[in-house]
C-alpha cells in the first residue's frame, strides 16, 4: 500500500516535472519565431493547451486565424499549410512542408530540431542560441 501511494505521488511529480520542461521548451521555440505582439497559436494537442501558460499565449480554433501551428500526429490539417508549423513528432516534418521545426522526446530526452531551409523560406531568423538545433536535412 505504502509503495502504491508513493508510486502514485512520484509519478504525479514526475509528470508535472516533464510538463514543465515541455512547456518551457515550446515557449522558448515560440518566442524564437515570434516577431510581433498578439501572436496567435493553433494546436491540435489538448495537452499543450493545458500546459502552456494561458496568460502568455493566444490560442485560436483554426489555422486560418493563427500565426503559428503546433501539431501532433493526427490527420493532416490542410488549413495549416500556409503558416509556420512546429511539429511534436520528428516524422511530421516530412508531412508538413511548411513545418519549420520540431520538439519531441527521443530516448527519454527532449529534442529540438529546426530545418534551416524552411526557416529561410519563411524568413524566420533565430537567435544564435538555437544554432545547435538547426539542421540542414530531415532524415
Amino acid at each position: 500500500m505504502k509503495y502504491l501511494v508513493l508510486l502514485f505521488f512520484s509519478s504525479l511529480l514526475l509528470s508535472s516535472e516533464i510538463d514543465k520542461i515541455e512547456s518551457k521548451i515550446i515557449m522558448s521555440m515560440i518566442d524564437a519565431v515570434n516577431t510581433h505582439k498578439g501572436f496567435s497559436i493553433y494546436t491540435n494537442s489538448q495537452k499543450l493547451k493545458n500546459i502552456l501558460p494561458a496568460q502568455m499565449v493566444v490560442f485560436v480554433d483554426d489555422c486560418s486565424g493563427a500565426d503559428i501551428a503546433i501539431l501532433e500526429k493526427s490527420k493532416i490539417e490542410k488549413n495549416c499549410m500556409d503558416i509556420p508549423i512546429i511539429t511534436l513528432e520528428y516524422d511530421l516534418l516530412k508531412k508538413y512542408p511548411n513545418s519549420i521545426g520540431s520538439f519531441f522526446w527521443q530516448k527519454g530526452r527532449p529534442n529540438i530540431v529546426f530545418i534551416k531551409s524552411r526557416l529561410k523560406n519563411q524568413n524566420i531568423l533565430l537567435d544564435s542560441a538555437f544554432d545547435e538545433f538547426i539542421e540542414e536535412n530531415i532524415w
Partner: protein
Amino acid sequence: MVKNFHYWLYVTGIFSILSMILYLYISFSKKENEMKENIIFNKLETILIQHEKIENWLYEECQENQNIQECILMNPEKSKMLNTMLYMTINQDISYSFLVFKDENNRYRFLADGASEPARVMQKIDTDNKKVWDEAYSSEEGTLISSNKETDGLWLTYLSPFAENNQAYMMLVTDFSISLDDKIKNTISPIKEILLYILGITIVIFVIGIFQTIMYFIARKESYTDQLTGLNNRNYLRKVIDSRFPYDKYDIAIVDIDFFKKINDQYGHDTGDIVLKEISNIFKKIIGKNDFVFRYGGEEFLFLFKKNNAEKLLKELMYRVREHVININNQTIQFTISVGVNKNLYRCKHFTDMVKTADLALYNAKRSGRNRIVYYSEEINEEKQSNFQTVQSAIDENRVFCEYQAIIDTSSDCVFKYEALVRIKDTDGTILYPNSFLEIIKDTNIYTDLTKKVIDISINKFLDLNVHKFSINLGLQDFNNPEIVNYVLKVIEKYPKLIDLMSIEVLEYDKVDDEISCISMVKLLQDKGLKIALDDFGSGYANFSTILSYNFDFIKIDGSIIRKVIEDDKAVKMVQSILAFAQVHDIIVICEFVYSQEVYEVLKSIGVEYMQGYYLSKPNQDLKWNNLHMSL
C-alpha cells in the same frame, strides 16, 4: 553542582546515542552502496559483453572499410543487423540501447538503434548532459551516469565508446534501470529509515537538551547576578555559604558607601546607580581569584577574602575608591567607604553571626567618622552584644517603661505637659537610664522598636486621661527613619486626639546626614498639627542655625546654661537673649534643669514661664509634681 552533573550527564548520554546511531546509519549506508554497486556491476558486465560482441562483429564485417561509420551508413543490411543486435539487448531493465557518433559539428547522430521503432540513421539526438557525453566519447573506458533515483531503483546511462587507433568513432549508449534487490528493500532500507527517524528525533532531543542547558545556565547566572552592578547577589551568597564552605580559610568584610543617601538625594537615583556600578567595577578589579564579592544591600557589599588577603586588598580598595572621580554633568563626585572586617570567622557558629560581627565593626567604623576600616574584636562585641541583649529582652519581656517629668507653667503654677522618659527595668530589678543603652542601640532595629514602644506606653498613659499633654523624645536623625515617621503618622491617624495631647521633643545629638529630608519630615508632622520642640538648645548641634532651618514650636534651653544662671550673669543674659529671640518668632521657651529655688527665682525674674527640673518635679510613673503654690 549535582544539578550541573545531571545536565552534563544528559548531554553526554544523548551525544553518545547520537554518535552510535550516526555510526550505524553510516555503516548501513555503506553496506547498501556496496550492494548497489554489486548489482550495477553485474548489469554492466552484460552491457560490456554486448559491447564486445558488437565490436567483434564490426571488426569482421567492416574490416575492409577504413571508416566504420561509412561501412554502416553505406550498407543498409549491416545497419539493420546492428539494429537487431541492439534489439536483442533490450529487456525489462535495459530501456534503450543505441549507437551514436559525433559529426563534424560535434552533434551526436544515430548510427543504430535497438528500439522496435528505431530512430532514423543520421538523425540528431540532443543529450541531457553534453559535456559528460563528450568526455565519455573521448575516454578509453565507459562512463556511468546516474540520471534519476527512484523509490526502489536507479535510472542509469552507460556510455561505452568504440575507438580505433585511440580515435573514438562511435559510442554505445545504454539506458537502464536497476531494481534494488529484496535484501536492500526489505532489510537495509527499512533499518536505515528507522535509524534516520531515530537520528532525527535524537537530534531534536539533543538540540532541545542543549538549548535547555544553555537556558538553565543563563537563568542561573541571572538569578545569581545583581542586575545593576553585575556583582553576585544574595542568592549566590546563599549558594556559596553552604555547610561545605571553608570559613576557616576566609575573612568577611562588609563595605558601605559613605553618605550614599546624600548622593542619591543630591544628584538623583540615576547618579546613585552610576556610583554603584563604578564602585562595583573597582571591586571586581581588586578582588582575587578565590575571593568573593556580593551586593548585600542597597549600598552595602559583602566580601569573603581568602585568608591574609583582606588587609592588603581592603587598603587598596579604600585608596582606589577615594581616588576615583565620577564626572556627571560637569560635576565631579567623589566618595569614600567604611569597612567592617571580621578575621576570626571560626569563632562564629553561623553565617549570620559572621555577618553580624562584621556589621558591628562597620558600625564602629561609621561611628568613628566613616572612611575607615575597623576590625572586629571580642571586646567591641561583648559590651555591645550584652547591651543589645538587655534592651531587646526588655522590649520582648515588657520591662520597658516610662517616667514622666512635668513641665510647669509658672504663671499659673499648673503642669504645662509631661515629658516621657524611657527606662528599662533590668532582670535584677535595676533601673537602666537611656544614657546607658541609647547610644549603643542607635542605628539598629532595636532602637526603632524601643521608640515605638515608648510611643505606645505614653499613648496608653495619656490618651484615656485626656487631660494632660505629653511629649516624647526623638533624635533628629529619627525623622530620616521612615519606619518611625510612619509609626507616628499612623498613631495620630488612629487617635486624632493625640494631635492636641502629644508633642515631640527633638534631640540633636548627631549631625543629620540628610537635612533636607529631615526638615520636610518635621514639617510634615507639624502640618498634621503636632508641636515640635528643640531639646537641649545651646548644646551640641542644637543651636541658632538649627532654629533657622526648622520652625520649632518650643525650644528647651539646655541644662548646661541654666545651671550657671545663679553664678554667671552671662548665662542669665544668654537666657534673656533667647527669650527675646523666641518672643519675636513666637516660640515658647522652656528652661530645664531647674534644680533649686534660686534657679527658679532667677528664671522667674527674667520672665521664663515654662520650667522643668527636680525642684519642680522629679520624673515618676504616677504624674506627680511639686505644687509650689501649695508648698509655699
